[in-house]
Structure formats: structure tokens, C-alpha cells
């Protein structure tokens, strides 16, 4: 695997040069938190941060997205295609957990059975430059889900912070080609590589939060009717924080917004936590109470998704843990399941 390096003090000018050619998304400070946004100058990017409040899935799967527009006129119905991406894009500074979430989202939006043109357009036109985590947070449990602070899944390039420089690992062919075209990337020496290996090893050991996730699916296979669910949901408010801030949650609703003879069909995020999520036109709701909906969340992520896609729909980023207003900690739920 090709490795090069870039000096930290050259990153801002590197981003500035990218901005001329690409639409560049990077972590940006907004009030007291961090979000991924398009930047118009390299100095806007935050290089040192824990993780963004909202997951960067919104760069590929926005909270609301116009699928097409329509208008009725004298000659009939006119359909306006959605705006596809014109410029190639770069997402810079995404964390390895979030980069891994793209692999999971790929399996949903770009599978043999289903090709989501909106997602695929953005995904194919985006180069993913991830920054590994030298100091994971206490709520990070990526290693329990097949990831890690320097996991390469889902990225084209992975940056490793070794002090004054980043070592850059070319994860994909696309990443390697990109390195060749940018002179800010220099050849890397053995000393830097050895620093890199140290950083990676140390970071792995800093992940303190662990859950034995391999046995969860087996337990869940037998737990649909378990009285466990009667109690675990009690404090849950049924809001959408965990689903909207989760990098792998992908459920959506489709709404038409129209006035007179013109309208738009819009895809919007939806949440299985909402009562209306499974409300059928007949009035029947297969998940009538918070109990069924909380059970669904855990089952979907750790059993159904494993059944259908061979992996858990969770990357251990810890956002749901940090942001849940009632501290319904998914790690505690998983550990309770393991102890059943």
C-alpha cells in the first residue's frame, strides 16, 4: 500500500488548491459543536476535533433531498430531473467510524437489487480522506464492531497524525491516483512510518469501551418475545436523536410539497422511533408502543441487518450515547442482552 506524507502546515494551502477544482467538505466549528460543511477556504477546516455532531452521512444522504420537480401545464405534465453533482467532491477529515458507515450505507443504497441514483451520484463523485483518531473518546467503541481508530474501511486516503506531519495511506486505487496529482504529498521516510505505527498501536489500546458483539445476534435470534423489552424502553422518549445522529441509520419517508400546479417530491429522513413510522393506511400499527419500537431499533441494528447484510448496522461512534437526553446507553442494553 502506497504511503506518503504531508506537512500539517501545508494542509490549509492544500485544501485551498482543492477548492479550486472540487467541492470540498470538511469539519467546521459551528457554535459549540462541529458539523461537516462545504468550505470555501482551507482555513475554515478544523483539523483537531473529536467528532462532528451530525454524522457526515448527510453529505451523501441529505436530510431532505428533492427527487424531482413537476409542473402541470397546458400540454400535460412536465418533470424536472434532480440536480446531479457537477463538480467532483472531496470529504476531508472524516473519522474512520464514519468512513466505515459509508460501507454499510453502500450495501443499502448501492446493492444488486437496488440502485439509489441520488446516493450513488454523490458517492461515486466523492473522494474520501479520513483522519484517524490518536485519542479516541470514552464513548467510542468502534473496535467492538470490526472498526478501529485507524480503520481504512470506506476511505480512499487515511491520514495518521504523527506530530508535525500526517502520514497518508493510499487505501484505494482512486486514492493513489489522487496522491500522484498533488505535489504537497512527499515521499515518506522510515522514521515517520515507525512513528505512525506507534500512534496506531497506542490508539487501539486507548479504546476502553468494549462490548462482546459477536454473540449478540445469537441471543437476539431467540429474544423477540422476551419480557426484557418491557423494561428497557421505559425511559426512552421516542425522539429521533439516536436515529438522526447515527451514521448508519438510513430510513426515509417521501413527501410531496406542492402549490397550485407545481410541486416537488422530496425524500426526508424518518425514524423508527416515531409512532407513525409503521402506521398503515388501515389504521393498524404493528409497532403500537414504545416497547416495539425500541425492540425494533436494537433488533434491526444487531440482528436483522446482520441476517441481511452480514454486518451490524453500528460503527461504535458513540453519538447516540452522548446525545440521548435520558442516557439510554446502547452499550448497557447490549451488555444486558449478553447476560440474558
Amino acid at each position, binding site marked *: 500500500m502506497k504511503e506518503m506524507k504531508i506537512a500539517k502546515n501545508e494542509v490549509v494551502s492544500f485544501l485551498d488548491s482543492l477548492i479550486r477544482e472540487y467541492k470540498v467538505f470538511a469539519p467546521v466549528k*459551528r*457554535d*459549540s*459543536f462541529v458539523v461537516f460543511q462545504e468550505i470555501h477556504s482551507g482555513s475554515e477546516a478544523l483539523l*483537531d*476535533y*473529536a467528532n462532528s*455532531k*451530525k454524522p457526515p452521512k448527510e453529505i451523501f444522504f441529505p*436530510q*431532505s433531498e428533492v427527487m424531482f420537480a413537476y409542473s402541470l401545464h397546458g400540454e400535460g405534465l412536465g418533470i424536472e430531473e434532480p440536480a446531479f453533482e457537477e463538480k467532483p467532491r472531496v470529504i476531508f477529515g472524516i473519522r474512520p467510524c464514519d468512513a466505515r458507515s459509508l460501507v454499510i450505507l453502500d450495501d443499502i443504497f448501492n446493492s444488486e437489487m437496488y440502485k439509489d441514483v441520488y446516493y450513488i451520484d454523490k458517492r461515486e463523485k466523492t473522494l474520501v480522506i479520513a483522519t484517524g483518531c490518536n*485519542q479516541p*473518546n*470514552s*464513548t467510542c467503541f468502534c473496535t467492538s464492531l470490526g472498526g478501529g481508530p485507524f480503520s481504512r474501511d470506506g476511505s480512499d486516503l487515511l491520514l495518521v497524525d504523527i506530530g508535525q506531519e500526517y502520514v497518508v495511506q493510499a487505501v484505494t486505487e482512486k486514492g493513489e491516483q489522487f496522491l500522484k496529482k498533488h505535489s504537497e504529498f512527499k515521499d515518506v521516510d522510515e522514521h515517520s512510518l515507525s512513528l505512525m505505527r506507534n500512534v496506531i498501536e497506542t490508539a487501539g489500546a486507548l479504546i476502553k469501551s468494549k462490548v462482546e458483539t459477536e454473540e449478540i445476534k445469537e441471543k437476539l435470534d431467540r429474544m423477540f418475545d422476551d419480557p426484557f423489552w418491557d*423494561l428497557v424502553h*421505559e*425511559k426512552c*422518549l*421516542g*425522539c*429521533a*436523536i439516536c436515529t*438522526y*445522529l447515527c451514521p448508519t441509520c438510513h430510513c426515509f*419517508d417521501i*413527501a410531496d*410539497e406542492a402549490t397550485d400546479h407545481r410541486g416537488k417530491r*422530496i425524500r*426526508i429522513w424518518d*425514524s423508527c422511533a*416515531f409512532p*407513525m413510522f409503521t402506521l398503515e393506511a388501515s389504521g393498524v400499527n404493528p409497532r403500537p408502543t414504545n416497547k416495539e419500537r425500541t425492540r425494533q431499533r436494537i433488533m434491526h441494528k444487531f440482528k436483522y441487518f446482520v441476517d441481511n447484510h452480514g454486518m451490524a448496522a453500528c460503527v461504535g461512534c458513540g453519538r447516540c*450515547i*452522548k*446525545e440521548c*437526553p*435520558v*442516557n*439510554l*446507553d446502547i*452499550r*448497557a442494553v447490549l451488555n444486558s442482552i449478553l447476560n440474558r
Partner: protein
Amino acid sequence: MPDTSVMIRDTAKKLLDEKRVDLIIGFERGTLPLCSSPCFTRRSEEAERLIWNASCENNLAKYLRRREEKVGIVAKGCDIRSIIGLIKEQQIDREQVFIIGVPCNGMIDRRKIEAKLDGKEILEAEEEDETVILKGRDFTEAIKKEEFLHNSCKTCNHRNPVIYDVLIGDKVEENQGFDEYKEVKEFEAQSADRRWQSFTNEVSKCIRCYACRNACPLCYCQECFVDSSQPQWIGKTTNLSDTSIFHIVRAFHTAGRCVDCGACERACPMGIDIRKLTKKIEKDVKELFHYEAGVSLEDIPPLATFNPDDPQEFIK
């Protein structure tokens, strides 16, 4: 504080053992520093988990409605005022609730502390009488609790329970000599453009997760207006217009009912200043109808009644 936790536990165990309640809703230790979590206990042994400290910030009155059983609830001043509201709106029976009232000096706002630490993660927190000792990977810092309270705690004038079935510990001193509407007045004094700018800046952060609505004990409509499709009152995207209407309408739906417990603001993941509107409406209700929500079981909420003397300067 340890005393308060012990007193709550003892009270809870007694109530459960004597079968005076079937369930006690309180707080237990959370999985993060400076964090507690709502706890549902049905047996005396489970009551051992109950705690009380300056991170017991949730409004547990949310969990009282639609229960068959007799419920005990560990409640601070604001929570109890919500309970009074729920009783007046006939959502719960007074006899069904056993109120374990806890005098409160305010709850700590974790986010204010995180902002001060500018990204450094808190790994441990030890609460003392007036201070909290924070420990991170490479720092230790002591902070004064009263400098990091939630905004709604800073303007609270009901730190002691208004009603209760048992009072835990001694009453505390009420906040004195301050203007709870100081920030509202500053806002009112601004131009309409400036106020609109300020309001839209806040709500543009909204991700329509409805945590504010779901955390509020007084938001209990079977079908919330945001979920109505026939007619559809507002769109479901984060379009600024739709989001603004959501916040404005929700604020008006809580007019004369909101007790300013701050649960909405605490639940919001994006740190939106939700009380900007609700506190202003609370002030208007006080001035127009001389009414304060959640302090009396007898008075009728102003939007549920009328009085021939009601102000009508708007009729010209």
C-alpha cells in the same frame, strides 16, 4: 448530597415494601460523568439504585400519564409544577401520584462545562457541596456549580416543592432579588428585524428530532400537529419556514401551561435556545392574565377560560 440520596432510597423502599405505591420513578447513576438517568423501580431492592445529585436534570413528570398503577415520583420544584399542570388538565389523578418532593439548588448544564473545556473530554466528575471536580486525560479542574447551572435553574423561583406527599430534607433558600425576565426584556427591546434574525439563527440549527416535544411533560397530544397530513400544517423538511412554524406553534401550544422546567432545552442535541420564545410567552401570560402556571391546583389556566375583565387593547 449523599444524605439526600439515602433519604430518597429509604423513603422509596418503605413505600414499596408497604405497597403504598406499585412503582417509583427516580434517578439512577448514568453511564457518563455528570449524567443521571431516569430509573423505574418496582421492588425494594431496586430502590437501592436511586440517587440524587446536581445532574438529575430530566423532568420525570413525563412518565406519569396513562398508568393503571399507583406511582411514586422523585420530583424537584419544576417537575412538581408540571405535575400540577397535568392534574389540572385531567391527565393524571392527584390520588394516583405520591410526590416525593426534593428541594433543589439547580442542575448543572453539562454543555456549558464542555464549552468551557473547549473540546477536552470529561472522564470523571466528583460532586461536592458547592463545586465539581472535573478530571480529564491530562487535566483536573474545579468549577463552581452555581456558575454552570442550566439557564432555567438560574431564573427559578420555585426551588422548593409547591406540593408534596413527603419532603426530602430541608427546604432551600429561594432565588431572591433578580429579574427572571431580564433576558426577555433585552430581547423585546431589539428591533423586529434583529429579533427575527436572532430567532431564525437559533431554529436553523433544528434537525426536527422532536426531542424538545418528547421531553416536555405537557406535550401529550395523541396526534401532534406536525404529524397531521390532512391537512398538512407544516412540511417535514428542515426548511427554515417550516421549522420556524414548528417552534412558534409549539411555544403557543404551551402558552399558560409551560412551567419553564427547561426539559426541552436540555434535550435538544443542537443546543437551540428554545426558551427564547417560551419565556417571553410566559411573561406575556403573567402580564395579561396575572397567572403563573403550576403553582395552584385550583386556578384555571387562562387559555381554558375567560374573564370579562380580560385585556382587550387589541380591539381598536
